[in-house]
């Protein structure tokens, strides 16, 4: 089942005829405080709602996807948890230590929306295509057996990243938390439709030109391990999202006017527009220097060499 957010904050199910059927009214019985509660309520009560949702979709009468004004399927997750790196990128280096950072949920943006580049003096703004896991239930200390059952579904993610900001000598991730920098779309596909999330092809096309092109088979820490490890640190809630990291081979700049389309096999595609009031320009195409540095050192611009263990 594909779950989308559209129009003026409605939630819908996308049918096989590529129309979005409004199911917001079925969620009113849970007494939402606002549109941000609709998705967590649907996630929490999916088993109970499923017959009604299926019958609603079978009845039809939906809006064609192209006319539906899709938004980010995630309205306001309590946490956006992002993996650092997490792909082997064609090297045979040892698996690195798992590490994460958080992205501002105020940065959420969706299909057809615009990533607005801030006036800050970044070295470059990169797209990072990722598969993202949407949490299905409140979870802490998940066992390996429970891990995959705690997943509601999957969506596509563009982790828009300003490089070169923040304090030198530390791995700053604040350049990823500008408003409009957390792109999700086009919908969430429930986990029953993705039997194996570790064999999916992920691509980015910028103005039709292929950039990133990799498989989730190359992931260092598979999704099951991400679920157990992260839930050993913090409580996860329905609608929280874990973004599984990116393969840096194929990153490139995002600049004024660019249309950036992120696709994950079995899930779908969504496009972010790019606006830069300063109309800055970077070399177009793949950032080969970044790709080489990550291959050779395992680190990109945001990940300097191991430091003294200095506290934050």
């Amino acid at each position, binding site marked *: 089942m594909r779950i989308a957010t559209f129009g003026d904050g409605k939630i819908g199910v996308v049918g096989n005829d590529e129309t979005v059927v409004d199911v917001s009214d079925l969620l009113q019985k849970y007494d939402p*405080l606002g549109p941000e509660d609709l998705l967590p309520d649907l996630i929490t009560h999916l088993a109970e709602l499923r017959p009604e949702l299926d019958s609603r979709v079978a009845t039809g009468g939906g809006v064609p996807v192209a006319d539906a004004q899709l938004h980010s399927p995630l309205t306001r997750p*309590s*946490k956006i948890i992002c993996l*650092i*790196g997490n792909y082997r990128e064609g090297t045979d280096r040892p698996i*690195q*230590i*798992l*590490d*994460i*950072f*958080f*992205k*501002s*949920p*105020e*940065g959420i943006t969706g299909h057809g929306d615009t990533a607005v580049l*801030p006036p*800050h003096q970044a070295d470059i703004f990169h797209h990072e295509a990722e598969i993202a896991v949407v949490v299905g239930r409140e979870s*802490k200390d998940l066992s390996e057996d429970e891990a995959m059952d705690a997943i509601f579904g999957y969506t596509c993610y563009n982790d828009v990243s300003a490089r070169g900001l*923040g*304090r*030198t*000598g*530390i*791995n*700053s*991730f*604040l350049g990823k*938390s*500008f*408003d409009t920098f957390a792109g999700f779309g086009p919908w969430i596909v429930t986990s029953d439709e993705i039997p194996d999330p570790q064999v999916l092809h992920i691509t980015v096309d910028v103005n039709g030109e292929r950039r990133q092109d990799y498989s989730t088979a190359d992931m260092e820490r598979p999704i099951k391990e991400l679920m157990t490890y992260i839930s*050993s*640190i*913090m*409580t996860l*809630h329905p609608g929280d999202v874990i973004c599984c990291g990116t393969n840096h081979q194929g990153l490139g700049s995002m600049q004024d006017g660019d249309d950036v389309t992120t696709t994950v096999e079995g899930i779908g595609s969504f496009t972010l527009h790019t606006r830069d009031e300063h109309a800055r320009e970077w070399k177009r195409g793949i950032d080969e220097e970044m790709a080489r540095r990550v291959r050779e050192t395992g*680190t990109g611009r945001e*990940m*300097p*060499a*191991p*430091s*003294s*263990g*200095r*506290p*934050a």
Partner: protein
Amino acid sequence: MRLVLTSDDRIGVERDGGIVDVSAAFEDIRYRTSADRMPRVLATFLDRRARVEELAASGETFSAPGLQAPVPRPPKLIAAFGNYLEGINRERQTQDMFLESPDSVIGPGGTVILPNHPATIFHHEAELALIIGRRAKDLPADASALDVLAGYSCGIDVSARGMGRMGPSRMGKSFDTFTPLGPAIVTTYEVPDPQNLRITMKVNGELRQDYSTSDMEYSVIEVLSFITGYMTLVPGDVLICGTNHQGLGAMQDGDQLEMEIERVGKLEVTVSDPQKREWPRGIDQETAARQRAVGAAQS
């Protein structure tokens, strides 16, 4: 005014050594849990202050069974890196911040639970906490920036060291229970100068951290202006302003932590470690010296 959230879900104001229930000022606000209630309350608080003050002045005081964190689960929990000169005469470093898990927050009297992860040490970091009361983006670096504050509070940024991939990973700060917050939200007019507050941390009665917010590299105003250049702040967001590392020390099983900020209040929590690990007690002089050396090297 000192606004609190009691453990039986009443919104209160401290008066005459007790608490007055001011929940009536917010009775129109729908909520499901105290976690989602307080951001909604704080979104209205600055505009309803007169009504809250009226209730606080006229109501009967009661003795609360206990307090929750004044924002049990903030929409965002933002932390500043370092942000103190620490006795080094040096240039200011570039300002930087990161986000922590909002599920790490616990309240006064709560228990920090050290996880079964191979950290090299667990440190207490006492910090001035800012509680946001208005939606804000692109604030100017002048006194008007303070108008978005619902008030100040005490925050402890508990930090598991030696975790993560490289450099100072923030992951070790996001364990559940690792951000004690409280006891109250103290309105800005109770704190006329936030850059002249003494902050202390005592562990089992022994003084560890003891510093002044006058040593801050970037002032509260500059912190607010900087972060809103990146992201929108929303009511209920909590921003902890960084710490002075001179005086950090280990937290271990059974420790009683008592953090105090002049004019803001005293926050007490206990520590539990099911693994009963032990570290040297007292101030971690090695971390303090390293921090001074890094500061000196960058001056």
